[in-house]
């Protein structure tokens, strides 16, 4: 069974700082990778996804993520955060052999951006 590990549970940073959130997964096969964001009081929304091809993927709101297959990692980055980026971020993995499309989620990282 696959598992997803997010390195940080809480991150606090100032506006304009750079953000990097770590995500590692354990699964021997080919995977689809996702980052979801949950703003306070809201449901999860898709930030970006990787299926194949260029390992550097760009998502909404200036976020990007890099898939490093050798490290089983899919880290999320944003060069300059804004107060509105305060949210919880979830990494998720789907095994491509899983025809049911089930996602395994990490525990989430709570990001607080201070003005």
């Amino acid at each position, binding site marked *: 069974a696959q598992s997803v590990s997010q390195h940080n549970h809480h991150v606090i940073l100032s506006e304009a700082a750079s953000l990097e959130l770590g995500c590692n997964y354990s699964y021997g096969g080919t995977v689809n990778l*996702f980052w979801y964001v949950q703003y306070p009081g809201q449901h999860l929304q*898709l930030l970006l996804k990787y299926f194949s091809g260029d390992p550097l993927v760009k998502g909404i709101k200036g976020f990007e993520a890099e898939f490093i297959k050798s490290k089983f990692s899919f880290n999320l980055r944003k060069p300059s955060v804004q107060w509105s980026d305060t949210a919880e971020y*979830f990494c*998720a993995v*789907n095994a491509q052999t899983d025809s*049911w499309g*089930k996602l395994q*989620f990490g525990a989430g990282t709570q990001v607080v951006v201070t003005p």
Partner: protein
Amino acid sequence: NAGVTQTPKFRILKIGQSMTLQCTQDMNHNYMYWYRQDPGMGLKLIYYSVGAGITDKGEVPNGYNVSRSTTEDFPLRLELAAPSQTSVYFCASSWGGGGYTFGSGTRLTVV
């Protein structure tokens, strides 16, 4: 286009009571899922469905039941509610590749 609609948004149940969480999607997705979200634990899959009449257990199915009589609806039934079922419940639908559309969630408290 409503996407995924969940009702109710909030509910307080007494121990031993039962209830059904409703989930409806209008995107004609075959795949639907129920997750529960607990602080610091991420989302855990309760049940999923790949089409009308086809459902299966996820990681944490105990205490729950589902049915899928139509493509649109995927209700989650809680029988004999317990405090351990206090959580936020999210329904999601997908075309199958993992790109989910989530509902707005149901915050359930069992007292």
